[in-house]
């Protein structure tokens, strides 16, 4: 069953132009139109976990905001859980959640517990059930000792974990996340990714995520929609995306001693080097030959074979 269906979705922003001189700009500003999303089509099934990928200004957050009903599309149709998002029906809003990595919904002056009490009052779920779920989530995210701490005294990671709890304790059918791990340390990022994967698998929550962190996408999502300049340039599973780039392999090699660069370049294109570590790019059909040559002719300490990194795949898609 399709949870989200988007047809010919278009968004044009009007942006003030600053080219008419000070007085004119002050009283009669002129505008130019910026096409942020350009007639995109996609559908998402219940329980899917989908990443929107794209460079800054590609239109991914605008798409997310249209899906949640925050902004009106200029043209096209959106159906989310059978609702038109901009109608902002209570039933629709009760079944979605939005978390934005760089926007706060929690008051800085209050404790986590006080903040969560306010959010509980917004939903139909009983207070007892809500607190039970909140405590379970807090335990999983390792913030259960911080209920009585003021939000402003928490670290960014702790705050974001409570933002996540406040957004999803009512068990929404769809969770929208806009850069949920921005600015976090590795441990917090990992914890949040595991948590998102867990709720996707156990609660069958549909996850729609935008992020510049490739690891977020690899760990949390099964499907990727790449948006560039307002258009979809790729829509498919993570496996399909990586398979498209299967013709290249990467060898991470650590040498025992220094070897001339000229000599090393005979084994493949060097895409990275630092001290005695090198990464070689080799075509798939030549990988067997290349690996035997590297092992037999170079003083190899360690070697690791990798597929094309997701960053590079995305960079290639962005440049199209």
């Amino acid at each position: 069953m399709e949870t989200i269906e988007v047809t010919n979705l278009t968004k044009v922003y009007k942006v003030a132009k600053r080219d008419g001189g000070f007085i004119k700009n002050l009283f009669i500003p002129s505008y130019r139109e910026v096409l942020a999303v350009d007639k995109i089509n996609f559908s998402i099934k219940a329980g899917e976990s989908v990443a929107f990928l794209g460079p800054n200004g590609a239109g991914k957050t605008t798409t997310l905001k249209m899906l949640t009903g925050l902004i009106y599309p200029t043209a096209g149709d959106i159906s989310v859980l059978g609702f038109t998002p901009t109608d902002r029906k209570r039933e629709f809003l009760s079944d979605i959640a939005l978390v934005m990595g760089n926007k706060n919904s929690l008051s800085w002056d209050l404790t986590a517990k006080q903040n969560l009490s306010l959010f509980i009052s917004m939903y139909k779920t009983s207070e007892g059930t809500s607190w039970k779920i909140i405590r379970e989530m807090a335990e999983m995210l390792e913030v259960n000792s911080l209920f009585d701490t003021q939000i402003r005294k928490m670290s960014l990671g702790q705050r974001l974990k409570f933002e996540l709890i406040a957004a999803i304790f009512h068990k929404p059918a769809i969770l929208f996340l806009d850069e949920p791990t921005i600015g976090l340390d590795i441990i917090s990022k990992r914890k949040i990714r595991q948590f998102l994967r867990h709720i996707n698998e156990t609660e069958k929550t549909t996850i729609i995520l935008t992020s510049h962190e490739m690891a977020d996408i690899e760990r949390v999502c099964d499907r990727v929609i790449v948006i560039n300049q307002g258009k979809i340039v790729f829509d498919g599973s993570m496996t399909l995306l990586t398979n498209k780039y299967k013709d290249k392999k990467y060898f991470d090699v650590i040498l025992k001693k220094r070897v001339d660069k000229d000599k090393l370049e005979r084994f493949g294109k060097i895409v990275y080097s630092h001290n005695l570590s090198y990464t070689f790019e080799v075509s798939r059909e030549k990988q067997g030959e290349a690996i035997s040559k590297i092992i037999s002719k170079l003083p190899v300490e360690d070697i690791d074979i990798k597929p094309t990194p997701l960053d590079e795949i995305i960079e290639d898609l962005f440049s199209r």
Partner: protein
Amino acid sequence: MNLSEFKEGVFIRWKIVKANTMYSLQESVAYTANNWGSLASTFIFMVTFLIFVTAIYGNVKSIAGYSYSEMLVFVFIAQVNYYLTWGFSLPNVVKLGRGVKTGELDMYLTKPIPHLWFVTFRKIDLALLFSNAFPSLIPLIYLLIKNYNLQIGFGNFILGVTMIIFGQIFLHCFQFILLLGAFWSGEARGFELLAYQLGNYNEPIPFEGYPANFRNWGFVILPVIFHTALTASYLLGKTANLSLFLLVLGATIIALLVKNFVWKLALRQYSSASS
């Protein structure tokens, strides 16, 4: 809308007011030193203003037909309106304007709540009323009791209280609509200043102090005039004109309808600050 939907709508609104009142109280008392600072500021203002009024009435018997004790009643109403505006309308409209600019509003527009109701009653600053209003009104209440020589009828009292309620609703709608400008311009500081100015303009002139033409032409419906000047006039029995009352009632209903209408327009205009 059927009865159960209506009941549910009332229930969620009641829950929001209750939760926001508690939330605002907790927020306001989170910084006790700050509360002492604002109490000192309002107390100093009240004392200096009373010295000013007392000094003037030392030389004249009445201003615009108001005796000293009537003027104290007028000042009392002005102060009550001031605290009501500062404790309820202004914090909410300012929060709304800033929320539009920062995109913080996103986080509430995606919650299953009546959004206009929520942004209207997001902050209900009872702490301000208890910690600032009551202590700073003590000198005024003392002078009122000491110099009280008025007879206020029950009907006048009811009219006066009704005027305060209408006045607060009208002023709030006016300030709210002003701040909705942020949805178009993306910035609300200028509108904020105007809203502050309107909220503060309630002390200087009793209703009878305005030129007769000004009163008769309906300028009374300017929000800054009727919530204090007309209230005092009705309360003290200086105005018995029911057509003015009906004008105010009509203006309040229209203000509520316009607020609702412009809010819907503003939401269509919302571009949500980029993240």
